[in-house]
């Protein structure tokens, strides 16, 4: 499969481990990705300032995808996936917005195409590549690993928009983990938010939210937390130490991106999965692999 790839801002500017591991594993699973011609914002932070401008940015991403000539667009960041999906829904349902947006796109010689399918890494792997294909490619089953999955908020909610998985009982990421031979457990806080959006205005509260979830997951005695969004990765992994401070806990929970975990099961060299960049104590997890 050949698809356009939109990385968003966070992955390109700091969450390099996600990009490194995603490029690596997608290639090995037969997914050829084509970067868009520009590195551009999806509109997420702009939303709070001017909703129309954000819709324009989201649609612009789809127009850039259109320019690649491909009909599939992979969006590995949950927030980008939501903003672009809502932008597409609004443009399709509101003629005035559509007209305005298309007019602006035209000024740059860009064209919107409604047929572009928006994927996230999770449903791309689960529904398009398929669990069977992944299982066959697994060279080093992650037996004995007990993990907790954190799918995130904006690719599950809200159901009416058509999201990546069921909002109340998401199973795809758990299935993807199980296919690698590991166990993914159910837990009460599974659907709780990492708090990343609050870093724009209430940093301590954001860290506190992340810290509370990390504390709860750590108490489950799992070997690690698996994420699939760079904002969640930033909160749980990069800022784990800061988060620990806000909730008065000693946190030492390995946090990895699913693409990194998948890479491990495919027996890819750890350096090639950006595992040296994770800030959380991933050695604890790696020693069990």
């Amino acid at each position, binding site marked *: 499969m050949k698809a356009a790839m939109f990385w968003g801002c966070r992955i390109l500017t700091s969450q390099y481990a996600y990009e490194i591991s995603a490029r690596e594993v997608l290639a090995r699973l037969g997914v050829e990705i084509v970067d868009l011609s520009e590195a551009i914002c999806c509109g997420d932070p702009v939303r709070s300032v001017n909703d129309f401008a954000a819709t324009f940015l989201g649609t612009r991403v789809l127009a850039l995808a259109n320019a690649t000539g491909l009909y599939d667009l992979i969006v590995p960041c949950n927030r980008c996936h939501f903003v672009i999906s809502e932008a597409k829904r609004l443009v399709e349902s509101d003629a005035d917005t559509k007209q305005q947006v298309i007019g602006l796109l035209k000024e740059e010689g860009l064209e919107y195409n409604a047929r572009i399918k928006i994927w996230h890494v999770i449903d791309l792997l689960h529904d398009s590549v398929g669990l069977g294909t992944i299982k066959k490619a697994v060279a080093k089953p992650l037996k004995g690993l007990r993990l907790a999955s954190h799918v995130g908020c904006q690719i599950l909610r809200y*159901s009416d928009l058509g999201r990546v998985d069921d909002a*109340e*009982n998401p199973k795809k990421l758990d299935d993807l983990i199980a296919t690698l031979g590991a166990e993914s457990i159910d837990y*009460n*806080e599974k*659907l709780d938010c990492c708090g990343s959006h609050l870093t724009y205005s209430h940093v301590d509260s954001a860290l506190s939210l992340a810290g509370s979830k990390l504390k709860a997951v750590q108490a489950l005695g799992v070997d690690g937390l698996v994420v699939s969004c760079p904002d969640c990765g930033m909160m749980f992994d990069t800022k784990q130490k800061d988060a620990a401070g806000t909730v008065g806990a000693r946190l030492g929970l390995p946090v990895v991106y699913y693409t990194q975990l998948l890479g491990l099961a495919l027996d890819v060299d750890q350096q090639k999965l950006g595992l040296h960049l994770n800030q959380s104590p991933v050695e604890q997890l790696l020693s069990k692999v």
Partner: protein
Amino acid sequence: MPKIGVYVCHCGLNIAGVVDVEKATEYAKGLPDVVVAKHYTYMCSGPGQRMIQKDIRGNKLDRIVIATCSPRMHEETFRKAIAEAGLNPYLVEIVNLREHVSWPHAHEPQQATEKAKALIRMGVARVRLLESLEKHRVSVERSVLVVGGGIAGIQASLDLANAGFKVCLVEKAPSIGGRMAQLDKTFPTLDCSACILTPKMVDVGKHPNITLVTNGEVLDVKGFVGNYEVSVAKRPRFVDETRCVGCELCTQVCPVKVPDGFNEGMSQTRAISIYSSHAVPKVAIVDPRCCLRLKTKRKEVCGKCAQVCEAKAIDFEQQPETLQLKVGGIIIAVGSEVFDASQMPETGYRRFPNVISSIEFERISDTAGPTGGKILSPKSGQPPKSIVFVQCVGSRDRRFHEYCCRIGCMVSLKQAILAREKMGQGVSIYVCYNDVRSFGKGYEEFYRRARDLDINFVAGIPSDVRGSPDGSLYFDVFERGTNKLLEMHAGLVVLANGLVPNSDLSRINELFHASRSADGFLLEAHPKLRPLESSTAGIFLAGACQGPKDIPDTVAQASGAAAKAIDLLLSGEIELEPLKAIVDNDLCSGCRVCESLCPFVAIEMKRDGEALRAEVIEVMCQGCGLCSAACPTGAVRIQQYESKQVLAQVRTACVGAMAGGG
């Protein structure tokens, strides 16, 4: 030369407030053959009708046009009125000046008046060509099929049987009693449900006028009002109903354990068992999917039940039966189901064993239930220290069912009160609610009783319910009255599941041509004035299948439906409207297009020498007009809606438009 009378109704201000009724009447006077043209405030009233009758007699009028509200309102009234004056009731044309003129064009009175004139002109053109028609009488069966053996079906059956009608009551389950049999107590009196229900169940079982078919369902319905032909399938029990004495020895020796459906799967029974402790009929039934002998189809396997049965009632060879019935009317009383809360995983249902549904609580509370009537948390088997009820699960929710389930509040109040009475003050009881709808007789007082018993009402619904390893539950809820965020802990969470349409309803819909409303329940003929009749003549609705409701309303509706059926069938005859298709044999070429199109299977081909001619089965014909529209020779016409009549209206409408300059 016809003598036409035109009457324009003001309908109070409904029509006269928009249409200039005087101008319209003046205009009518000028139309050809119109001898009398009058207007009046309420044509349908006594004086209005008498005015028309006087003119019929005095002026020897032979055609009447009444320009008034929709014919659906008063066409029948006016037909009766002119019949009383000696004129054939089918020689009247109703012109709709309300729904077609004054209501839609309320802000354009001048144009509305022009339209009124045009419609009157069209009405006159048509009425000139109408012909006298006679209603035909058909004899009817004085028997009724009641589908569903819950309290609605039971009540309706008893009312009909006591009135001398023969009733066949068909119930899908092995026993009648329905949902009410599963309840512990009923609100607001806290009567023991079984105690008030079982005498009626026994009466049904014994009544000479009632044929009870349990473990059965309706397969097919043919015919028409007063003359339905129904086939009912009776699934085999593998036990002879005439021999079984209900001793339950068979159940004791059966080696196969199965979940007990009557107890909502919370306990186990055996592959051969009696459905419930007060089953009617009290006869055992074998589940062929679980019974070893029936599953394996091998005669040497098990058979322990047959060995101990002293009445020799067990019959592994029993075959399904089909009964053919002829009934005059049908009452649908198939009830409703409980919302399956596993569609809302955030409630914790099916995730955490101590989150239960309202019907599961009923079984727990019932002394004949899985815990002997003790309120126990399913996981630990211990009495909970706190119980929280969560309202509106699956109801008032546009993601699932928008309607209010009507009984959720009262059920939780009842269950909370029962819990308090059984467990004393040692347990904390909370109800998380949105509104408390205690609308009926004695209901508000019941709500106060709950508060007097220290049951706390938390004004707010939790977003999700979470579970601790020990099985207890916790969740946050923001309380509206205190503006506080409360963390609540519960040993038992009871969901107030709403009532939802029976999953069988799409089959019922097809079998009986009974339409469904937007909420999925069966549609009544008119929500205010005809709540007991379905969209099909002769088929009535009773109970929760028409909409969620409590027992008092169900019983009232059941008796009402029975009365409606009695009203229909008592005289032994009904009249049929003559607005039906009729075939001119001389024009019919026998092409059979009409036969293939008729949705009511009302056209038969009859041999006429060498040729085939279409013949309309009058009693089945609904006058829909499909045959007439399709007939290539014009042989089929619909009485009162013949081409010449309709075309006359069309022609005069166009002529008027051209003359008036469009």
